[in-house]
């Protein structure tokens, strides 16, 4: 050793498994390979591999090569001395050296013990052969060598017994089946995976496992392995015997503390460490991973190891001297023998007032349960269908608010689609629970230029642990890289081109007095225009500034440039305002005349109770508007559109309130208001709901006693959701007031393109009631005032027919095609 090298502190790591190697990686990531002179001892003669994936190797789903995390060259490149296949026998804390099986002593300045776990082998007669360790045909399932040995043996044997119905046992049983071995699984407890599942869940998992052809026997305490030279079977304590020529003992793991114990270090269930992973009373000795006992807890899952490795590396390198490990809330999501299982926290209620929501469908192998205490999720179990696991893990981790209807914890009931929930996942939400990769990290990698799933997985390690999050990672990568206008590279940004969430953006716009889209780009995005951001910014600026907004026509979407809805052939649809769906003979006559005069190819009634003239050429729009001489119905904007009504009390014999008049009044006041998403409203005169008010962004229902119910957040599009009851009020005036406040609160607080059906559940109906009905935060007067300003700034955009706002505003963009390109449908024809 040279003088220079001797000056570097020596770091010795005992254990070359996932925790030890990860700690070294984290150290090198922080300070490079030269801070420490690193020596690693590993009992196994290999580089470092992903132990979790051994079950994939066993089942043949993965090659051995694919599970290595760090190959031998990695150790060389980083100047690490790897003593693979070398067992450390003793730590000499006084001389600060470790003694290995070959008699060598290796001095250290800092020592990390990462000896992991050993398989737990219950006392079973005949498991061990007096001379050669395990009996021929008896295996544990912990290492690559174990796995290889099992595969070799399984190839020419027929019947296997697996002892242990936990995760490892199930994986072993499933894996062995691949070699044509018939498998019986013996489990001492009353149901499978009893550490993670309650009895019902365990039974449902059992049915799924049995469907795979694995025989399951519970309450089976194995007493003896039968057979003298070769395994012939096992006998249970109750006398039952099972024939087998191979036995796998997968009854759990125990922290591997033999070395620490032999060296006089404090050991209880594991090696006792403090929040810096320092072994009690040993200033230079640390322990990390499954061998550790921290605050009375030991961990057998990978995520806590990663957290520990980070803390230890921050501490050892001095890059984060305050780093502390506070323990982990363990949540697991696994594929167990081909069945999806997720579990976190407690499995059953513990107190009288704990809420316990359970759904079981044994025939399909689906089981879901959640335990809620004081409005916080304290436990959840999912089997067979883990679609809600992302949301539940987030709620479990952070104690975030839960939906009032608890069943929504288990199912998506007409909520936003899965894509939206991926998009709405918070930036710091952990996607890969094995490697601790957040959505933000994935998005940052994609926006940093990595556009392939594998590239992102390589760069972040996401999906490289157990692999169960790959689908979600793929969805997020796809979403972050998508070319769609609605795709948003950073979840919290209001628009993709300005790196700010909506409140921050609004504050900046107000503080700097930014009144145009280009002013926003100049001030807040380094002058970088972004086409995908323009539409959202126009909406926001118009909402904020009303009359003072400085219009830049090019920033508008084509629909808002020409106040009509572009159709697939480049023509437009024209929908005149028809308040509350009420019209007159004179209006109908005029519409008919216009349709004839301009040879409108299709005249159609809309779902919003208006009349749509389709197939209008862009250049004809001003003439059509002039001939109609009716205001715009806004059937093209992210804005207030229409109020659907029923006949109401004047004519309908069931009508309880004058829904028609109220609908007209609402439309008159709020017409054309721009919003983050389109707004479809309805007023219906009785709970028969003819105007479909329960499934509108805002729906008003007249009820007996002259009162009115206001529902918000409904939808009847691709996603169907019944609105939440915001309030029940006595007068139409109150309906108007609360409608105004809700609309304005939505306009100011919803994300761009976030419809009310997503916004209302996100904020929570109870919170909305506080804010809007009870005015708990005193927002009311401000909301009213700003809304009034927007209402006052309303101009019918179809007045632009008299003088185009820009040159060529209505010039066609596709003059050479014969338009319309859609078929002309005569009235009444199918």
């Amino acid at each position, binding site marked *: 050793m040279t003088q220079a090298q001797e000056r570097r502190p020596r770091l010795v790591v005992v254990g070359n498994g996932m925790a030890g190697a990860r700690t070294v990686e984290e150290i090198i990531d922080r300070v490079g390979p030269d801070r420490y002179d690193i020596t690693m001892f590993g009992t196994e003669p290999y580089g470092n591999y992903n132990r979790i994936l051994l079950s994939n190797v066993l089942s043949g789903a993965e090659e051995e090569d694919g599970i290595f995390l760090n190959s031998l060259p990695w150790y060389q490149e980083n100047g690490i001395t790897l003593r693979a296949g070398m067992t450390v026998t003793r730590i000499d804390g006084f001389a600060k050296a470790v003694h290995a099986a070959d008699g060598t002593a290796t001095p250290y300045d800092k020592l990390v013990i990462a000896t992991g776990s050993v398989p737990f082998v219950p006392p079973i007669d005949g498991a061990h052969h007096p001379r050669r360790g395990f009996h021929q045909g008896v295996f544990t399932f912990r290492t690559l060598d174990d796995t290889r040995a099992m595969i070799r043996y399984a190839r020419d044997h027929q019947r296997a017994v697996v002892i242990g119905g936990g995760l490892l046992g199930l994986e072993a049983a499933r894996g062995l089946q691949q070699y044509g071995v018939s498998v019986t699984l013996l489990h001492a407890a009353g149901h499978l995976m009893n550490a993670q599942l309650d009895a019902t869940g365990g039974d449902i998992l059992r049915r799924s496992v049995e469907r795979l052809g694995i025989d399951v026997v519970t309450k089976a305490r194995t007493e003896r392995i039968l057979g003298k030279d070769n395994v012939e079977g096992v006998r249970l304590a109750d006398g039952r015997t099972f024939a087998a020529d191979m036995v796998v003992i997968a009854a759990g793991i125990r922290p591997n503390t033999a070395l620490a114990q032999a060296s006089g270090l404090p050991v209880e269930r594991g090696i006792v460490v403090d929040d810096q992973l320092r072994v009690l009373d040993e200033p230079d000795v640390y322990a990390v991973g499954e061998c550790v006992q921290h605050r009375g807890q030991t961990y057998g899952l990978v995520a806590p190891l990663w957290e520990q490795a980070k803390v230890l590396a921050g501490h050892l390198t001095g890059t984060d001297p305050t780093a502390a490990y506070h323990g982990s809330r363990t949540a697991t999501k696994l594929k167990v023998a081909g069945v999806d299982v997720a579990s976190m926290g407690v499995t059953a209620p513990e107190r009288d007032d704990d809420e316990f929501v359970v759904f079981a469908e044994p025939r399909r192998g689906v089981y879901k349960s959640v335990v809620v205490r004081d409005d916080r999720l304290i436990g959840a179990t999912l089997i067979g269908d883990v679609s809600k696991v992302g949301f539940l893990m987030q709620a479990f981790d952070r104690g975030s608010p839960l939906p009032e209807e608890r069943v929504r914890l288990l199912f998506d009931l007409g909520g936003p689609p899965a894509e939206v929930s991926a998009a709405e996942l918070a930036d710091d939400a952990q996607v890969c629970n094995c490697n601790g990769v957040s959505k933000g990290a994935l998005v940052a990698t994609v926006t940093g230029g990595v556009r392939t799933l594998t590239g992102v997985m390589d760069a972040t390690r996401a999906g490289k642990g157990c692999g169960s999050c790959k689908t979600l990672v793929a969805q997020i990568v796809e979403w972050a890289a998508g*070319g769609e206008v609605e795709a948003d590279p950073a979840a919290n940004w209001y628009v993709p081109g300005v790196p700010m969430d909506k409140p921050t953006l609004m504050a900046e716009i107000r503080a700097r007095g930014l009144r145009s889209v280009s002013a926003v780009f100049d001030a807040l995005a380094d002058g970088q225009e972004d086409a*995908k951001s323009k539409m959202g910014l126009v909406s926001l600026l118009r909402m904020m500034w009303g009359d003072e907004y400085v219009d830049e*026509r*090019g920033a508008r979407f*084509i629909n808002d440039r020409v106040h009509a809805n572009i159709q697939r052939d480049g023509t437009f649809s024209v929908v005149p305002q028809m308040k509350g769906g009420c019209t007159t003979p004179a209006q109908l006559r005029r519409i008919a005349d216009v349709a004839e005069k301009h040879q409108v190819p299709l005249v159609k009634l809309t779902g919003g109770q208006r009349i749509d003239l389709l197939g209008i050429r862009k250049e004809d729009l001003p003439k059509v508007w002039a001939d109609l001489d009716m205001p715009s119905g806004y059937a093209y904007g992210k804005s207030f559109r229409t109020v659907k009504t029923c006949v109401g009390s004047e004519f309908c014999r069931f009508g309880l309130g004058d829904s028609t008049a109220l609908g007209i009044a609402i439309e008159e006041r709020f017409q054309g208001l721009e919003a983050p998403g389109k707004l479809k409203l309805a007023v219906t005169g009785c709970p028969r709901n003819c105007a479909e008010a329960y499934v509108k962004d805002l729906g008003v229902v007249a009820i007996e006693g002259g009162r009115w119910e206001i529902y918000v957040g409904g939808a009847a599009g691709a996603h169907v959701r019944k609105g939440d009851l915001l309030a029940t009020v006595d007068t139409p005036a109150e309906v108007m007031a609360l409608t105004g406040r809700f609309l304005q609160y939505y306009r100011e607080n919803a994300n761009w393109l976030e419809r009310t059906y997503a916004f209302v559940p996100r904020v929570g109906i109870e919170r909305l009631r506080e804010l809007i009905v009870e005015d708990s935060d005193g927002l009311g007067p401000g909301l009213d005032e700003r809304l009034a300003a927007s209402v006052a700034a309303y101009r019918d955009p179809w007045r632009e027919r008299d003088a185009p706002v820009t040159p*060529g505003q209505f010039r066609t*963009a596709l003059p050479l095609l014969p338009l319309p390109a859609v078929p002309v449908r005569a009235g009444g024809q199918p």
Partner: protein
Amino acid sequence: MTAVDDGRLAGGALVGGALAGGALVGGRLVERRLGPVGEIPPGEGRAYPVDGLMVAVFRLTTGALRAVSAVCPHAGGPLADGLIDAEVVICPLHQHVFELATGCSRSGQPPLRTYPVRQDPDGIVWVSLAQAGDDAGGP
């Protein structure tokens, strides 16, 4: 697509000044007068029929001009009606994204054609394209 080499049309063969006066260049390209630049509001595009082709001309907020084929290769959307920034145009129908300088799609569609375009000292917009006859028609 046609037999004309798009790369040559879009790329380095044409150098700004060489096209002054609308002269034929090398017998393969011809420059056409589109109209006053004032017809195209800054930040917007307008479509022009040229020799049986449709060309969308965009005026960036910097004042620079870009010209591409006017019809979206995905479903025939009118690109001149699309939102733009300094780099891309977004088709108004299905939000496919195309680079204005190269015509390349950023959303997996076939590329657009690009055309050299300039504004003369009198504020007239000119676009260069293959001589009629060389080009069999629009995309």
